[in-house]
């Protein structure tokens, strides 16, 4: 009997669209007072406690802790206290009637089912809506003033009330793409409007496939400069937009373009299924990797070299970094520093970053480093890649590695994250192992095993002193890399790790 009130999630910051429910302080059936704290939510800006807008009894909680809720979505219903409806309701219905024409008071559901939030905040419906003009509106006079950026003249505006008319989508830029003109506010449910939506969506599809490829002007310019045909690319950006990376990848050479073509084409679908059935793809990849390992071991003639180094200076450097404000929220592991050292050393010895293409009879040198990082997971060995690791600062690399390994440990590494590596590091040290003879990742020419760092007796200036010592092992494909290049690469990595200042001497 008593009217239940909703409490829609408010925008507690300025322009927030959603928040996560952290915990409820009350439950159904609880009596609450006005402004009693009932729930804690976390927004993009802050954790905030929400006070109850009504005194009464909680009827139902509509969201669970951990759930992310859009602003404006009711999170609870409450039965207002006192049933003072006799006292306060008489003038309310009249007022509500008047108000509902206006779409309802803030926080209440309007006649059209929308919940009003404050001044333009909160979630919007997906398509922009235009209000219908009166039939005899002085359209000719007004057309120019309110047509916004569209090139439609007054004659193209809705001819009659409630008839949706498509705008000239696609031709004049993103602003009008997918915009539907709806006849009336709730028209999204009418058949004509949904047809409208379909045609708008279809229009976008055509644009992405056969029409004009979606790319920002600087990317178009880049593609033109590099001679890359945009139509041949599949955009990896949101909504299929072609990004700078897509163009650069395509320009980097036919081999990689072709190679990335496969996974990229199916990547959306793969990622989609990866989210729903995330165990299956990893298993498949693991199988494939095992096969590839066998292939690698029997096709690429492996040579392994070892180097023992004093990494005390690197460990000291790492301690200093920990105190540096820029690194305060990053865990700079020895692995991250070793990875950085590999990127630097690979520039000097590009052979280790090259690939043997027996079919073409060519060695493919790569101007980029996609660094594979072997990570142990419950399901076995996974080797995700840090893309363009050579372009990253130590901090970026550390962050990327942290993400990469935690993703891998959680078993969420996607198949495409494991393809197209150029060189690999395997951190056998985490298992307390000194060294080993790593097997090359197929298609790569070098892999570095990074051993455990332990305190060992070491001779410094004729004195035996305890130092932090570590062993490196580098396996390389002798078809591509000779002993001289392999040794230089290993020595370079070792020199940086035993004296990080040496990094300054690398171009």
């Amino acid at each position, binding site marked *: 009997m008593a009217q239940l009130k909703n*409490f829609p999630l*408010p925008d507690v910051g300025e322009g927030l669209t959603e928040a996560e429910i952290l915990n409820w302080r009350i439950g159904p059936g609880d009596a609450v007072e006005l402004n009693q704290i009932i729930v804690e939510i976390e927004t993009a800006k*802050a954790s905030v406690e929400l006070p109850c807008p009504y005194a009464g009894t909680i009827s139902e909680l509509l969201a669970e802790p951990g759930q992310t809720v859009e602003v404006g979505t009711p999170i609870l219903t409450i039965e207002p206290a006192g049933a003072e409806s006799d006292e306060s309701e008489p003038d309310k219905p009249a007022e509500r009637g008047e108000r509902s024409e206006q779409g309802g008071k803030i926080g209440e559901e309007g006649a059209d089912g929308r919940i009003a939030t*404050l001044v333009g905040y909160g979630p919007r419906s997906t398509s922009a809506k235009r*209000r219908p003009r009166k039939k005899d509106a002085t359209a000719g006079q007004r057309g120019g003033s309110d047509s916004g950026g569209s090139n439609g003249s007054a004659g193209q505006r809705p001819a009659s009330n409630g008839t949706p008319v498509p705008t000239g989508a696609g031709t004049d830029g993103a602003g009008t793409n997918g915009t539907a003109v709806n006849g*009336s506010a709730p028209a999204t449910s009418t058949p004509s409007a949904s047809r409208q939506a379909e045609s708008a969506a279809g229009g976008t599809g055509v644009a992405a496939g056969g029409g004009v490829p979606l790319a920002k002007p600087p990317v178009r310019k880049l593609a033109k400069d590099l001679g890359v045909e945009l139509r041949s690319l599949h955009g990896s950006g949101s909504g299929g937009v072609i990004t700078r990376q897509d163009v650069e990848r395509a320009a980097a050479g036919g081999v990689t373009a072709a190679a990335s073509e496969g996974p990229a084409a199916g990547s959306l679908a793969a990622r989609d299924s990866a989210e729903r059935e995330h165990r299956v793809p990893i298993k498949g990849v693991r199988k494939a990797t095992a096969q590839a390992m066998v292939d690698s071991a029997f096709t690429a003639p492996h040579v392994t070299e070892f180097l023992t180094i004093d990494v005390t200076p690197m460990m000291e450097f790492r301690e200093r970094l920990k105190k540096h404000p820029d690194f305060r929220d990053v865990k700079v592991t020895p692995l991250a520093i070793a990875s950085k050292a590999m990127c630097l050393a690979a520039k000097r010895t590009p052979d280790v970053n090259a690939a043997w293409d027996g079919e073409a009879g060519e060695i493919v040198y790569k101007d980029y480093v996609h660094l594979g990082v072997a990570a142990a997971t419950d399901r076995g060995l996974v080797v995700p890649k840090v893309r363009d690791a050579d372009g990253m600062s130590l901090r970026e690399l550390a962050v990327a590695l942290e993400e990469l390994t935690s993703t891998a440990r959680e078993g969420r590494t996607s198949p495409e994250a494991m393809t197209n590596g150029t060189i690999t590091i395997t951190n056998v040290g985490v298992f307390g192992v000194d060294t080993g003879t790593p097997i090359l990742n197929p298609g790569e020419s070098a892999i570095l095993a990074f051993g455990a760092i332990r305190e060992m007796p070491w001779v410094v200036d004729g004195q035996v002193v305890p130092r932090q010592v570590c062993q490196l092992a580098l396996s390389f494909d002798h078809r591509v890399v000779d002993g001289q290049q392999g040794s230089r690469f290993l020595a370079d990595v070792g020199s940086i790790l035993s004296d990080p200042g040496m990094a300054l001497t690398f171009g």
Partner: protein
Amino acid sequence: MSPEHWTRPSRPDDRDRLADTAVPAATSATPTREQVIAGLRATSEGGADLVQLLTPEGQRVSHPDFDIDITDEQLRGMYRDMVLVRRADREGNALQRQGQLGIWVPLLGQEAAQIGAGRAMRPQDMAFPSYREHGVAWCRGIDPTELLGIFRGTDHGSWDPNETGMSLYTIVIGNQCVNATGYAMGQKFEGKVGNSGDDPASNEATMVFFGDGATSQGDVHEGMVWASVYDAPVVFFCQNNQWAISEPTERQSRVPLYERAKGYGFPGIRVDGNDVLATLAVSQWAMNEARQGNGPLLIEAFTYRMDAHTTSDDATRYRLDDELEAWKLKDPIERLRAHLLREELADQEFFDRVDSEADELAARFREFCVNMPEPPPERMFSAVYAEESPVVAAQREDYLNYLAGFADSGHDTEGSVR
């Protein structure tokens, strides 16, 4: 390095790191224990020059330069002022959390600074606020409900600055200092300052309110320069609440803020901004000086923002709980309450009455907010100029015609009439 690094709270894994490291900079996000204590002292103690008449324990103390004659009735009145203003402020915060306001700017903790200053003003004086001066507005006779429009986004303020002696809220930081100085120069040019003749009580002055963060703005500097060289009757009232959003005062100034006045050539005084008596005494003195033509002056009210900067801010991300706890002990309302009880100037019945009055105010405030009417579209044009302008009139006609051309009522479409 981004500024956030200076004031980010420490993370758990930083703690053990602290133990064996060298002393970080004073502004480091992870201060040592000693620095925390030293910092607390720095923000919670105003130094030797701090003018105080009421200790945090509610004990009346004397000051050689500033003392005040005040009736018991006035004391109780200021207690009531502070309680009511705080109650409205808390309700404003709650209303924002319930989706009824776009934003709210809390004054929690600064009641004494604002009531002390506001009660030192006479009707003919002029106040130029920033956007947190709910207490000053209260003293100028502006009903708290009139503050709601700007925070709900329906208008930019609805009170008449001429009638109330208070300008509308200024969102641009420090901007009001220039306006206030200009207004004060006008008061001087019009001969409303320094009259000793028939009615010295008719003399006027201006008071401008801003925060510690605003002192880094060019407008404040300009205002002070102009005010000083024109001897403008303006009192610069800086509420140093220790935080400019997330930036501590030490990122605004090397010297205590009140000492800046020296550089402009006028007096600067630091008063305990959580002591309503001292703030009133110093403000009365300063306003009298200004009215007599001895302006300008700077008052630094040493206080603390107990809540976040605004409802969009999360203060726990940059400041320490210890600091908040230390300032809780200096609460302006509790201090006066303790004094009233200690001196037996008020009984329980009085406190209860004030509390119930506060609840009534809060209910009225809420009711008004929830049912606030949206101003009609012509309001956008009606108060642009004092007199009708043909250009604005044409724009109004055009816009109203445009709105009239819609087939629906339009109130349910975002951004249509607002």
